[in-house]
């Protein structure tokens, strides 16, 4: 492990991590899985650290997952859920950042509607910043927990064939998955209507599979993305009905798979749109293990970054 570069102050994207760093996080998540199985689901590792969950976009699932991760590490946590753009709220992200720093917050977990906002915050405060989803850019902990779940199932990532299905164009989960999987040697494909795939997506190292049936025939695992209803309203696809008929992961389609496909979904699901209940609740789905792994991965990330938290007792000096 000596040649793995340190993770740095923030985790804002998987794009910039090395394969070694990705493996470090995944390996560190393993013992944290065990902590969540104990009766007393707590270790004192981050005792006394203050962590703020700054959620500018509504999200129950990710926020709770982070909250549990933080509490299981014995940290003191505060969650701020605020909707609407920072501009309309009056206080800019810069001012929010400075206020947090003035309160000597050790770590900030941020979810925000603007791509680049986690990096923006990380460049302006000394606290560790963890990106819980910035606009359409990345959702690093989701990517990591998806990869951990695949590793649990298959024992490896290298050579694994993973198809990411759905609205890749607007998906930060897709981007994080693409970076993490390709760096660890998986073969990645994207599948969905062309109007929902970035025009130059192949330059990211993925192949395009236009039809879901072909993706099912090729892949070892499918990561099914949530289709947002706004896409229909903005004219990217004609209707949800057509989306389900042409691209939906239905029980029929899954039955024709040549192998035991593993089915993943970042949640929350639009049952009957991108995925049918029969599949989501079926034996191939690892959607619930994904959620369990989510807490362990987030504990690992918090733990690894905390090793480099700012030392507030050093005035002015405190380099993370």
């Amino acid at each position, binding site marked *: 492990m000596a040649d793995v570069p340190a993770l740095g102050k923030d985790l804002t994207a998987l794009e910039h991590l090395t394969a070694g760093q990705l493996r470090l996080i995944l390996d560190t998540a393993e013992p944290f899985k065990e902590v969540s199985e104990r009766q007393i689901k707590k270790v004192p590792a981050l005792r006394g650290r203050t962590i703020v969950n700054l959620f500018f976009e509504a999200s129950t699932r990710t926020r709770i997952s982070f909250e549990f991760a933080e509490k299981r590490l014995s940290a003191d946590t505060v969650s701020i859920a605020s909707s609407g753009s920072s501009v309309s709220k009056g206080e800019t992200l*810069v001012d929010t950042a400075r206020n947090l720093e003035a309160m000597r917050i050790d770590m900030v977990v941020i979810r925000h509607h603007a*791509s680049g906002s986690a990096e923006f915050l990380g460049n302006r405060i000394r606290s560790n910043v963890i990106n819980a989803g*910035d*606009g359409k850019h990345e959702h690093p902990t989701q990517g990591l927990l998806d990869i951990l779940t695949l590793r649990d199932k298959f024992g490896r990532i290298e050579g694994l064939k993973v198809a990411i299905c759905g609205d890749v164009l607007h998906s*930060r989960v897709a981007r994080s998955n693409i970076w993490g999987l390709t760096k660890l040697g998986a073969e990645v494909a994207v599948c969905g209507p062309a109007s929902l795939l970035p025009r*130059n997506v192949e*330059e*990211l190292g993925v192949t395009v599979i236009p039809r879901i049936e072909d993706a099912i025939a090729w892949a070892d695992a499918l990561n099914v993305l949530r289709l947002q209803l706004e896409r229909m309203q903005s004219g990217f696809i004609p209707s949800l009905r057509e989306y389900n008929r042409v691209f939906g992961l239905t029980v029929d389609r899954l039955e024709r798979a040549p192998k035991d496909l593993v089915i993943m979904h970042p949640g929350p699901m639009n049952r009957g749109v991108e995925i049918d209940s029969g599949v989501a609740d079926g034996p191939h789905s690892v959607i619930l293990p994904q959620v369990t792994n989510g807490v362990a991965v987030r504990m690992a990330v918090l733990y690894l970054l905390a090793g480099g938290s700012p030392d507030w007792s050093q005035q002015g000096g405190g380099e993370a």
Partner: protein
Amino acid sequence: MRPLLLKGGRVIDPSRNADDVADVLLEDGRIAAVGRNVGTPDGAEVLDVQGRVVAPGLVDVHVHLREPGQEDLETIATGSASAVAGGFTSICAMPNTDPVCDNQGVVGFVIAQAQRAAKARVYPIGAVTLGQKGQQLAEFGELVGAGAVAVSDDGKPVATAHMMRTALEYAKTFGIPVADHCEDMSLAAGGAMHEGIVSTRMGLKGIPAAAEEVMVARDILLAELTGGHVHLCHMSTRGSVELIRRAKERGIRVTAEACPHHFSLTHEACVGYNTNAKMNPPLREAEDVDAIREGLKDGTIDCVATDHAPHHYDAKEREFDDAPNGIIGLETALGLSITELVGRGLLTLPQLLYRMSTAPARIFNLPAGTLATGAPADLVVIDPGVKWTVQPETFLSKSRNTPFAGRELTGRAELTIVRGQVAFRRTP
């Protein structure tokens, strides 16, 4: 006013294809004589400009001076001072002020403020439509009568093809160009940067090249239909350059400008969410940069303009999506042009100076861009070889939003003369 004699410089007058070591005598605000051994009149001030280039003052046909309405970003006084610091003696002020320059009152105000500042000459560009709302034509006659030299709805495109057609036809009456900001809003809506691999990686909605090209094609066809003169603002894509090239071959009255950032930077400059690399049209791909340079070389693109767009530090200090578009450019244009165009051997210095003075003056019918005897005494003295580092805190503009901070450039204005008097002198 004392006569001014500039002695021993390399005098480049692109309007007459002249490039010799000569003296230039200025009297009563006009060029009195250009030649060797012109002779020193009594009481004349003599400036030794040996080793320097003496050229017609530069002309920038696309500047946002922000006054009236946003004087915290820039004023006509600071903007025209910034202009002469960059070597510009004439600039055209875009009408997207507050209130919009769509009536003789605002035109007159801009001219009066410029005269008070007594730096660069400022020629207002009036709006195409009232309030730039795209619904009703502004009174071109009144605007021109008050001093406007062109019309534009810049900031936005001329909204509909019908409106553009009418504007082109009506503008013919007054002999002025319609300058269009070419952007199809439905393709570009919500976009923060060029649509390409970088926008995909950064998770930002992109503006495809087609958003510009669709409007370029529209405007060219309407210019052909009407016989009017369309001037295409801030061209940025190789597709646009190609469309203009073919239009000119067919003899259509289209002229075009390009900004220094579009021949110096690519969309990679946005990486790290650098809001100082955010402007509209956005920075494009390397192939587009090459095409713009080539277009300036072969004349498809007639002139260099800056689209100088001051913004407040606070406005740019925010998430990329929310930051406003635009960068300042008056004080870096000459340096960037010499470094990127002359330095790469694409244009000679006289060819560049043609694109930065004579050509824009001709397009907009301005009394500038020439050192012919009797012409206004607007000149710039350039040190074409000096290496300098861009330090925005030293700019005369009120704003600092530039992506070139810290960059080393070659060439800049040392002395700028307007109406026969020194308007800017660089102190070492």
